[in-house]
C-alpha cells in the first residue's frame, strides 16, 4: 500500500487514510520518506545502472508479461527511447555544467594559488593544473617552501570561513583541507558530500584522491584506504567516463596496489590521447616496474 501511495496510484480517500497513518507511525513515515528519497536519487544516477531491465520492468507475479509487436516497437518506441536518451543526456550535461560551474567558481582562488604546481599525485577536479611537483609538508627545522606559502594562505582562509552550506563551498573546503595536509578532515568532508550526492562522479573521484593521499602519507592506512580509493575511482569512471581525473586516480590506485599491468593499461590509454593528461600519464608509466614508456 505504501508503494502504491508513493507511486500516486491511490484515490484521494485512500491517500488520506495512508497519510493519517504515516503521520502517526514513525516506522511507516521513515519507510515513505526514505523510499521517496532513494528513488529520486537512484533516478538521478540511473545512467550508472547496468543491465537492460530494472525491477520496474518486471511484471507482477502471476501477471503475464505482454509482448510488444515489432512494428509498434520500431515505429514508436525506438524513436521515443532515442529522444529520451538524447534529452536525458542533454539534461545531465546541463546539470553537470551548472554544478561544475558553481564548484569551479568556489574553488578558483585555490586553483589560482596552486598555479602550475602540484602538491600530491592524485588529481582533484575543479581545474587544478598539476604542474611541477612541490612539497608543502612542514618538517622539523624548515617551513614549507616559498612557493607553497601563497597556496597555504588561501587554503587556510577557505578552511576558516564560517561553516558552508552549499555543495560547491563544502567541496572547495574539502580541497583546501587536503592541500593543507589535514587529510582526515578532507576525507570526512568528501565522504559527507558523497553521502549527499551519491551519484556525483566528481566527489567519488575526489574522495578517491584524498584516500590515495592518506594512504601515501599516514602509516598503516594503505591497507584500508587503497582498495576503497580504487572502488571510488572506478565508480567515478562509471558515472562519468569523460572525467579524466577519475581515470588517472583509478590507475594510481591500481599502481599503488601493485596491479602494475592494469595501471599500465590505464596510463597507456591516457598517454596516447595527446592532450594535457598525456605527459602526466607518461611520467607515471616511467615509474612502473620494468617500464620504458607507453607501449605501442
Amino acid at each position, binding site marked *: *500500500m*505504501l*508503494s*502504491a501511495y*508513493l*507511486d*500516486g*496510484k491511490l484515490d484521494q*480517500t485512500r*491517500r*488520506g*487514510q*495512508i*497519510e*493519517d*497513518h*504515516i*503521520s*502517526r*507511525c*514513525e*516506522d*511507516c*513515515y*521513515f*519507510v*515513505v*520518506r*526514505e*523510499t*521517496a*528519497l*532513494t*528513488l*529520486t*536519487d*537512484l533516478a538521478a544516477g540511473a545512467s550508472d*545502472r*547496468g*543491465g537492460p*531491465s*530494472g*525491477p*520496474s*520492468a*518486471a*511484471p*507482477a*507475479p*502471476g*501477471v503475464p508479461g505482454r509482448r510488444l509487436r515489432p512494428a509498434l516497437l520500431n515505429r514508436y518506441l525506438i524513436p521515443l527511447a532515442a529522444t529520451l536518451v538524447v534529452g536525458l543526456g542533454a539534461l545531465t550535461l546541463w546539470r553537470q555544467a551548472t554544478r561544475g560551474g558553481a564548484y569551479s567558481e568556489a574553488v578558483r582562488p585555490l586553483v589560482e594559488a596552486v598555479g602550475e604546481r602540484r602538491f600530491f599525485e592524485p588529481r582533484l577536479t575543479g581545474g587544478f593544473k598539476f604542474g611541477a611537483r612541490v612539497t608543502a609538508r612542514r618538517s622539523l627545522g624548515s617551513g614549507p617552501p616559498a612557493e607553497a606559502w601563497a597556496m597555504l594562505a588561501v587554503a587556510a582562509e577557505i578552511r576558516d570561513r564560517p561553516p558552508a552550506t552549499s555543495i560547491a563551498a563544502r567541496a572547495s573546503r574539502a580541497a583546501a583541507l587536503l592541500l593543507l595536509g589535514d587529510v*582526515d578532515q578532507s576525507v*570526512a568532508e568528501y*565522504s*559527507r558530500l*558523497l*553521502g549527499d550526492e*551519491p551519484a556525483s562522479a566528481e566527489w567519488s573521484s575526489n574522495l578517491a584522491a584524498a584516500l590515495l593521499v592518506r594512504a601515501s602519507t599516514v602509516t598503516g*592506512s594503505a591497507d584500508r584506504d587503497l582498495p*576503497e580509493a580504487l572502488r571510488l575511482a572506478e565508480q567515478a569512471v562509471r558515472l562519468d567516463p569523460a572525467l579524466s581525473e577519475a581515470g588517472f586516480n583509478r590507475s594510481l590506485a591500481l599502481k599503488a596496489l601493485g596491479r602494475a599491468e592494469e595501471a599500465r593499461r590505464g596510463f597507456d590509454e591516457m598517454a596516447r590521447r595527446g592532450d594535457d593528461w598525456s605527459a602526466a600519464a607518461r611520467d607515471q608509466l616511467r615509474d612502473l616496474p620494468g617500464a620504458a614508456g607507453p607501449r605501442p
Partner: protein
Amino acid sequence: MEKTLPDAQVRRAELESLFLASLPDIEQVSRFIARRQRLSASEAEDFLSEVNLGFIRSDYAVLASFAGRSSLRTYLTTVIQRLFLDYRRRLWGKWRPSAEALRRGPLAMRLEILLYREGLSLDAAFETLRTNFSCPESREAMADLAHALPPRTHRRAMMEGGEDLAVVPAGDLASPEVQLQGRDTSTRAQGLINEVMEALNPQDRIVLRMRFEDGISVADIARTLHLDQKRLYRHIEELLAGFRKALEERGLGWPEVASMIERGHCHLCLPPARPETGGSRPSPEEAQA
C-alpha cells in the same frame, strides 16, 4: 491435491526467477540505502545478506504479495527500507541520531550512541570505539567530535512528560547548570510542540516534520506527497506562521524552538496512533504491505 503440488512448485519457480531477475536491483537499492544510512563496509555487507535472506527465508512471500499496484522498483525499495529498519533496530535499538551526528557521519553517530544512549564517559566511549570498531582517531579528535555533538536528554523521558529526565553523561561535555537550564526549557517546548502537532491535519504534520526536523527540500517533499511545489512553498509559510503563533500564544518563540530542534533537544514528533474508531482506516500491517 494432485494438481495443487505442481501448481505450488510452478508458482515457487516463478517467484524464484523473479527474485533472481531482480537480484541486481535489490543489491543496487540495498547498497544505496547502506551508503545513504552511512553503514560501515562490513555492516553494509551484513545488511545485504539480511536483505537477500529476508526474501528467501519466507519462500519469496514478499514477492508473492506484490499485486502490481505500484512499480516493482518502488515496491522492492519499500520492502528493503523496512528490512533496513529491522536491521538498524537490531544493531542500535530504537534510537535516532541527532541532525548534527547525521551530518558528521557514522563515527559521530556511533559516538553519540555510546555517550547518550549507553551513557558511557568520553574515555569509555573512546576505548570502546578503539577496541570494538578499530577506530584509529586520536582521543583529541574524538573529544572534538564529542564537543560538536549536541548534548541530549533522554528522548523517551521527554516524551513521557519529562518527570524523570536522564542525566546527560560525559561531564566534560556540558556543565550541569547549562544542562539543567536547557532541560526545563526543552521539556516545556517539547510538550507544546506535541500539542500543536497533534492539532494539525495529517498531511501538514508530515510536511512540517519533513521540512523542519528532517531537513528535506521542498521539492522532495512535493514529489513524495504528490503536491504542487509552488503552492507547497506558500503553504509551508502559512503552516509555519500558524505554528509560530500557536507556540507564541503558549509563551515560546520560534527561533528558540527551531534552535532546540536543530540541536536535537526537541523533536517534531509524530503523535501516537489514536485508538481505533472503526471505519476504513488501514491497519499498520495493511499500510506496510
